[in-house]
């Protein structure tokens, strides 16, 4: 199996957990290794118990592990909560006053983090002292730590950080075991980014020029990225007064010809639902990035869940086609955000990018080749390409063959662009004519049928037929893949299907796959098996059961493999 070291930095918000975690990710890549990092944080600004877990392997890592091998605890008060999740041969590095609870545990290594922080010239460097100790345990040379630190800090503070890391590493000599040392490997340049960042880059690469939203975890990270990375490529960002304004604004910008998007979470999306229906009626291309978290209502704001599948599939009054994509990895977040921008405009339908807190905050190293600058195909018509009727009027909703009418934008000389949330004639003006109503409904539905022709097929891995099939959508992709490997290694022949598109649903492909396995389980971060219900509705086939997790935390591979063995 090679190396598999799981490191967890723990501490209160404001103690530098994220900084130390990020540093260790870069150190892993600097050493030629791969990592997968996840965050678990509480809904508060300071204090609480937050953690940043970095799992390092020789192969790309796409799932976390519950048991940590090395824990850096920045708050000794957390020890009682930590010990149960440390592996038997693991270590816990902690600034522990003598006599504190937990000190009797042989895995705890009391380290003078605060003292060295002060020696390095700042009271806030305990995290970097600790990172130096962990780096030493991993066998990362001090000069590599020095080099990576130059990427994070500047000037006087960089020097203090270097001193802090060195003090930690020197102290660790002979005090930490050698069992976690990483073998030497050649360095290769890799992308390092989180799911939310990849989604943002994909949207910008997909030509997004207007982004708007109202802050809500875990959608806020997307807004943050769009507002920071978008403007150099001509994107205009605005914080709306509420989510209702946000989606109505995005639709207004779309009407004026901009590729537009919003980002939110379940509660914010609930407020956008009427506007989603407006996008359906106006045939306005627009993208909604929805980061799921556990509900109902406010639920658990900073944790993960997959409870909005059924919601997004039927959200919005009336009938209209929509595209719903569910990225399963950082790479897919990039590719599908670009795809969303393209398809939304090509078919003039709203598109929902269904992600969640787990994927949003998951950081990995990735192959730069998976992040190409893909083409942007604008479909707005100008000049002689604008179709006109006998009276010279532009018909925004002209009855085209596949239902997609050529889209012109206001400002185009010689025409006006008319859209209405009421049922309308081809020229966009409201009507109560029943025959026109029927034709317009059929036009919108035809777009959905055309959209269906371009459905992204489900991704199957493992044997083409056999005993067990695991089916998931969205962020569970990596966990399911590793669970499948664990099962196969344990003699259970298992395959996995990942759905990166859930609407239009790839019904035929899923049916054909389901028919080839003896048992099939959906894997879902919800209580009621929403994907299992969707499969039944779309294929008429019943899965054997659902493996659920709904405590607000992501699945882990061992747990999932165990669940399959118990249910099989």
């Amino acid at each position: 199996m090679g190396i598999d070291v799981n490191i967890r930095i723990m501490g209160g918000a404001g103690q530098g957990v994220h900084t130390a975690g990020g540093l260790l990710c870069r150190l892993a890549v600097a050493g030629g290794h791969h990592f997968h990092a996840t965050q678990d944080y509480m809904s508060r600004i300071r204090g609480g118990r937050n953690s940043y877990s970095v799992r390092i392997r020789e192969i790309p890592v796409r799932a976390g592990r519950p048991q940590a091998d090395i824990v850096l605890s920045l708050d000794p008060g957390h020890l009682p909560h930590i010990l149960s999740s440390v592996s038997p041969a693991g270590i816990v590095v902690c600034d522990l006053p003598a006599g504190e609870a937990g000190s009797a545990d042989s895995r705890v290594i009391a380290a003078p983090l605060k003292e060295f922080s002060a020696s390095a010239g700042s009271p806030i460097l305990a995290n970097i002292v600790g990172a130096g100790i962990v780096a030493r345990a991993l066998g990362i040379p001090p000069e590599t730590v020095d080099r990576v630190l130059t990427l994070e800090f500047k000037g006087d503070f960089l020097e203090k950080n270097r001193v802090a890391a060195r003090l930690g590493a020197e102290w660790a000599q002979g005090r930490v075991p050698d069992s976690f040392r990483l073998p030497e490997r050649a360095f290769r340049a890799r992308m390092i980014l989180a799911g939310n960042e990849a989604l943002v880059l994909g949207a910008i690469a997909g030509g997004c020029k207007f982004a708007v939203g109202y802050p809500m975890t875990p959608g806020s990270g997307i807004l943050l990225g769009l507002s920071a990375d978008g403007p150099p490529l001509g994107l205009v960002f605005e914080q709306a007064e509420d989510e209702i304004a946000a989606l109505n604004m995005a639709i207004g910008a779309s009407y004026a010809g901009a590729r537009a998007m919003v980002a939110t979470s379940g509660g914010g999306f609930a407020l956008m639902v009427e506007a989603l229906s407006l996008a359906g009626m106006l045939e306005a291309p627009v993208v909604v990035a929805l980061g799921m978290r556990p509900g109902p209502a406010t639920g658990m704001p900073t944790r993960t869940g997959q409870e909005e599948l059924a919601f997004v599939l039927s959200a919005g009054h009336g009938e209209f086609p929509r595209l719903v994509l569910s990225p399963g990895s950082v790479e897919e977040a990039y590719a599908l955000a670009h795809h969303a921008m393209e398809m939304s405009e090509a078919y003039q339908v709203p598109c929902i990018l269904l992600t969640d807190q787990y994927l949003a905050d998951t950081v990995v190293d990735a192959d730069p080749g998976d992040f190409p600058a893909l083409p942007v195909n604008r479909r707005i018509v100008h000049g002689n390409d604008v179709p006109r009727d006998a009276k010279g009027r532009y018909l925004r909703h002209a009855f085209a063959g596949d239902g997609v009418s050529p889209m012109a934008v206001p400002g185009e000389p010689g025409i006006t662009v008319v859209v209405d949330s009421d049922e309308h004639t081809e020229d966009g003006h409201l009507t109560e004519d029943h025959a026109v109503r029927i034709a317009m409904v059929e036009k919108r539905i035809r777009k959905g049928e055309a959209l269906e022709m371009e459905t992204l097929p489900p991704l199957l891995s493992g044997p083409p037929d056999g005993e067990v099939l695991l089916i998931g959508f969205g962020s569970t992709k990596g966990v399911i893949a590793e669970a499948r490997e664990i099962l196969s290694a344990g003699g259970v022949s298992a395959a996995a299907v990942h759905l990166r598109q859930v609407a239009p649903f790839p019904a035929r492909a899923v049916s054909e796959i389901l028919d080839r396995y003896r048992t099939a389980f959906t894997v879902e971060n919800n209580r009621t098996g929403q994907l299992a219900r969707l499969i039944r509705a779309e294929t008429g086939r019943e899965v054997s059961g659902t493996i659920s997790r709904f405590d607000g935390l992501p699945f882990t591979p061992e747990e999932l493999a165990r669940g399959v063995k118990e249910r099989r």
Partner: protein
Amino acid sequence: MSGIFDTDVENAWCPGCGNVPILNAVKKALERTGKPKHEIVLVSGIGQAAKLPHHVDVNVFNGLHGRALPAALAIRMANPSLTVVVTSGDGDIYGEGGNHFVHNIRRNPDIAVFVHDNQVYGLTKGQPSPTSDPGWTGSLQRSGVISGPFPPLAVAIALGCGFVARGIAADIEFTADLMVQAIAHKGFALVDILQPCVTFNKKNTYQWYGKMAYKLPADHDAADRVRAFELSLEWEERIPIGVLYRREDRPCFEELHPGVGDPPLHARETPPDAVRDLLRKRLFTLP
């Protein structure tokens, strides 16, 4: 009256409806601006008033109830060369869309907003609106309106709106003139228009408004915010019409927003090299 902005869309308003003179004022005002049709966008929400854009041959965005302002703002942000005018009802702008009214006055985008204020929900058949007088009996408040009326002009002045005016449907020339000034004003410009509802509002009639309304005197100092606020509260005895408050020194949102401007968003490209530069920022290489 016929003109260059006429459309052949069937009229859905009651005979004698106050929306008809407002429509005529809008067309007159747009003609006087001299702008070509394709550079004008009329934005509305839902209600009888919100149907007005269908009768004007310009670009039209007839969106959701209460949501005209967010759409109008975004159209301006996407393409500031467009002249954007919101024309909708009091329930739409002050009720359902109240939050957008407040925050867009704060933003100050260059949008003229004409509110057909008839103090009643007409299309849903006679419920009180945010501006209904206390005691007025509507189909959902049968023992009379309890809430105090929403004072749009006072709220706008309090929030620093740079152009606050009141028109009257019965006087097309007067109201059209206010509209022309509102469109010319750089920033959020509010024209609240006293409008009779001949079917559901038997109190605030053409006759009643005719008796109550008075034109502001020529020597009214529209730069005097405190005086404008005082005037905005006049209602019980008599109702001032005209430009209550005006200031031209506040830059509009589009000027202050760093990304808004030329070229319009629909014409902005996504060069692959710029995308590659952006992606390269996430590429980890050793120094």
